[in-house]
């Protein structure tokens, strides 16, 4: 058994930041990641990091922009904590050597971004995430923090008390991809989940192949509720053939969207009369799809993003990376012609329910970054807010797990924060199939840390052996493709009750087929077939949670658009949709949104740009 004070699962931005923070508190930290840290998807972030750094700006404005962007589904304590801490975190990064783009006076540059009232997005070219990820990994190397790379965490080692709020997380079980060893990891201080996105639940996504929602799925099955899962951000500018992201920075610098008729539709069609292309992402994505659906798209699929008028010098200085992406992945020269773009799954606003300190309702289990939902993005995340989020809340989770007192959290977690229970009318019953499905039936017998870990290691060994020894059955790639297909068809930018129900049925069928899944590759050495098979199970769970949330929320808020419910219903829906695994039969309930900030209460207003 491997033993550390704090275990960080995931080596992306949030994980690295959390590890550094816990290390600063003197904890013995280890990072367990299924990739090598520098391969993490934080590296693909392009645009920038929002922070109120300058005198003319203030954290209050940043908080307000974020709250407005969230369509008033963000929790004020989370948003305020975030906006207050972001500047420190950016300066921290700078002190760690991050190669930010600079002004003439040598200070860090900032640029305008969608939904921001001040140009407060700091950046390093159009590859901000890459530089941030590497800068932090360098600091991890400097501090000598242990990294278990290419170890796939497949299970959390949690006690099995009846009530999730009584449970304790003692560590996790991980599979060494290179050798096939299954290891138990014990953490005495805390386990921090920082597993990133779940974009692979969709087939057109900007997310990496590794972004399979492992964290939310594992935490969900261990008893932590998942929050606002229906809130999926579709980025308006992704390349049609691969889903590769074209940064919002292009529009921030002045890039213009045109439809097939050559109209600058954001203005001419009145989608956003003030902000135009720089309206919030959900607004632009819907505008693009509406144009395409009305037959004004190009090849009935996409619209054009034009940056030629910015001039070669400016493009090369600030957006050079975009030229390469357009050239390599779409065969288009951004200096010569407009780039084709369409909306693609980009970010999950929802995730594992945590408070401002990154804690879940399970003792010793934390989450940070995209896999978590402190709820600061609410129904829509602003561009440039993801990177500072993972810095701020990654650090807080790390500090807290490392033993620093961050004060009492104001955001409630766990079923006890419930305000109302709700049934959602589903065509098929969601959740686990029978008792044969693992992670079920808690009886409170398992409490001793090493016994807990031992038990979970045994279960995992059995699962892996079964998968490897099975000779015939269903191929995970088929199941995965089915889930992705139905999600993209039915749970996309535009959602209707019928489609959502259809998706639930498809997911159910996928779940049934998964019962019969087998791993063709019998090897213990670098068996990616096995890893993908385990991931597919996680994808099924998160896809189902997304769809359930979407079906429950009968209103149009932020990224969540419902055909039958075309307005934001503030009287009824200023609340989070929560889903708890409930030992295999998921339970839906709601939790109130906290709009009371430190000094003021945020009043929901119409969100126009």
């Amino acid at each position: 058994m491997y033993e550390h004070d704090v275990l960080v699962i995931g080596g992306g931005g949030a994980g690295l930041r959390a590890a550094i923070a816990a290390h600063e508190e003197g904890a013995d930290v280890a990072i367990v990641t299924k990739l090598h840290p520098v391969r993490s998807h934080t590296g693909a972030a392009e645009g920038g990091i929002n922070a109120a750094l300058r005198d003319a700006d203030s954290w209050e404005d940043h908080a307000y922009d974020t709250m407005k962007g969230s369509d008033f589904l963000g929790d004020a304590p989370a948003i305020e904590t975030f906006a207050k801490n972001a500047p420190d975190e950016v300066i921290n990064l700078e002190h760690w050597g991050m190669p930010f783009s600079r002004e003439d006076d040598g200070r860090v540059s900032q640029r305008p971004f969608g939904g921001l009232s001040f140009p407060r997005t700091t950046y390093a070219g159009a590859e901000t995430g890459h530089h941030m990820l590497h800068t932090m990994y360098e600091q991890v190397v400097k501090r000598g923090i242990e990294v278990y790379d290419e170890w796939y965490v497949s299970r959390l080692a949690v006690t099995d008390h009846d009530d999730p709020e009584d449970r304790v997380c003692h560590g996790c079980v991980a599979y060494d991809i290179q050798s096939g060893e299954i290891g138990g990891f014990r953490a005495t201080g805390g386990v921090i989940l920082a597993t990133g996105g779940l974009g692979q639940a969709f087939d057109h996504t900007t997310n990496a192949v590794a972004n399979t929602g492992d964290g939310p799925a594992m935490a969900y099955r261990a008893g932590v509720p998942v929050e606002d899962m229906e809130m999926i951000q579709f980025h308006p500018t992704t390349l049609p053939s691969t889903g590769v992201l074209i940064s919002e920075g292009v529009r921030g610098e002045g890039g213009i969207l045109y439809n097939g008729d050559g109209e600058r539709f954001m203005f001419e069609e009145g989608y956003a009369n003030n902000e135009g292309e720089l309206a919030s992402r959900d607004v632009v994505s819907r505008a693009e799809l509406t144009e395409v659906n009305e037959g004004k798209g190009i090849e009935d699929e996409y619209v054009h993003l034009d940056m030629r008028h910015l001039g070669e010098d400016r493009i090369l200085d600030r957006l050079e990376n975009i030229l390469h992406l357009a050239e390599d992945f779409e065969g288009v020269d951004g200096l010569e012609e407009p780039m084709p773009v369409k909306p693609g799954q980009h970010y999950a606003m929802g995730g594992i329910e945590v408070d401002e300190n990154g804690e879940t309702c399970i003792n010793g289990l934390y989450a940070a970054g995209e896999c978590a939902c402190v709820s600061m993005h609410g129904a829509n995340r602003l561009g440039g807010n993801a990177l500072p989020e993972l810095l701020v809340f990654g650090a807080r989770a790390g500090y807290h797990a490392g033993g620093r007192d961050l004060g009492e959290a104001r955001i409630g977690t766990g079923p006890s924060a419930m305000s109302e229970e709700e049934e959602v009318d589903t065509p098929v019953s969601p959740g686990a199939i029978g008792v044969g499905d693992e992670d079920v039936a808690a009886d409170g017998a398992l409490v001793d840390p090493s016994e807990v870990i031992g038990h979970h290691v045994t279960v995992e060994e059995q699962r892996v052996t079964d998968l490897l020894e099975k000779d015939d059955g269903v191929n995970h790639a088929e199941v995965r493709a089915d889930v992705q297909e139905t999600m993209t068809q039915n749970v996309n930018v535009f959602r209707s009750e019928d489609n959502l129900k259809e998706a639930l049925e498809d997911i159910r069928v996928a779940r049934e087929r998964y019962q019969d899944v087998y791993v063709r590759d019998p090897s213990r050495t670098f068996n990616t077939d096995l890893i993908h098979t385990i991931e597919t199970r996680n994808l099924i769970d998160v896809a189902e949670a997304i769809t359930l949330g979407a079906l429950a929320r009968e209103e149009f808020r932020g990224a969540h658009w419902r055909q039958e419910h075309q307005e934001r219903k503030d009287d009824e829906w200023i609340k989070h949709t929560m889903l708890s695994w409930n030992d295999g039969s998921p339970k839906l309930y709601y939790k109130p949104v906290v709009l009371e900030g430190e000094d003021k209460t945020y009043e929901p207003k119409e969100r126009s740009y």
Partner: protein
Amino acid sequence: MSTELKEKETEAETETESASSRQSRRMEQKRQRASRRDLKEEAREEIDDADDTIEIKVFRFDPEVAGKEEPRFDTFHVPFFKGMTVLDALIYARDHYDTSLTFRHSCRQAICGSDALFVNGTQRLGCKTQIADLEDHLGSTIRIEPLPHQEVVKDLVVDMEHFYDQMEAVEPFFDADELPEGELEEQRQDRENREKIKMSTRCIWCGACMSSCNIAAGDNEYLGPAAINKAYRFAMDEREGEDRKQQRLNIIEQEHGVWRCQTQFSCTEVCPKDIPLTEHIQELKREAVKNNLKFW
């Protein structure tokens, strides 16, 4: 859409039927449709329909699996579509023919650095290599191998440990002598200096350069282009003080450091991020010599 029509029909004729049995019948249809999904069959159809197809020949090795202990090449037939990359072809072959085909990949956009491969005799990123850009891609077989000069773990996966060790041997972390005191105060860096280090900060640790280097192949302890480039990134960053720069020069000019470079430019040619690696190594050599001349 056809499914819509079908649904209406069903509803009309089964008005008396209870909702639940209608539901279970729908589910049954879905199950059947899903279980009929056969990716191999799909591939056969797609190949028949495709205007063009390609052939990829992939290196296979697995120390534990009979028939793969001795390295061999497997050939896969893949339908070609516009914009297809080498990685797309591999994923297609894996998902449709053989799920045990093993290779690293993650971001698909040339930033994670996982999928450096040896394609038709050159180190390239699979995701960034358009099949259409390969010479005679329709007529000849595309050969895909793991990176040379690295131990093969399985199929296209090589052991990166040594590469990581070399990267970390150059103390690859920013370490300023002093930081500004004021609250929220950043270190100043002029644009020129940022421009100078810009290319060197682009490295994605893919290991293509190291694999292409004849010297690294012969001398295992040679730091290699990527690590030296990393050292360059910090040595040239003016935010770090003079003392630190001295230490950095000491690291790179030791025996297995910059002097090993024979300026063959192979690293510069294969770098997927277009980093002028040889140029950076040469500049460090000159810095080191200048530095030593001071004491003569």
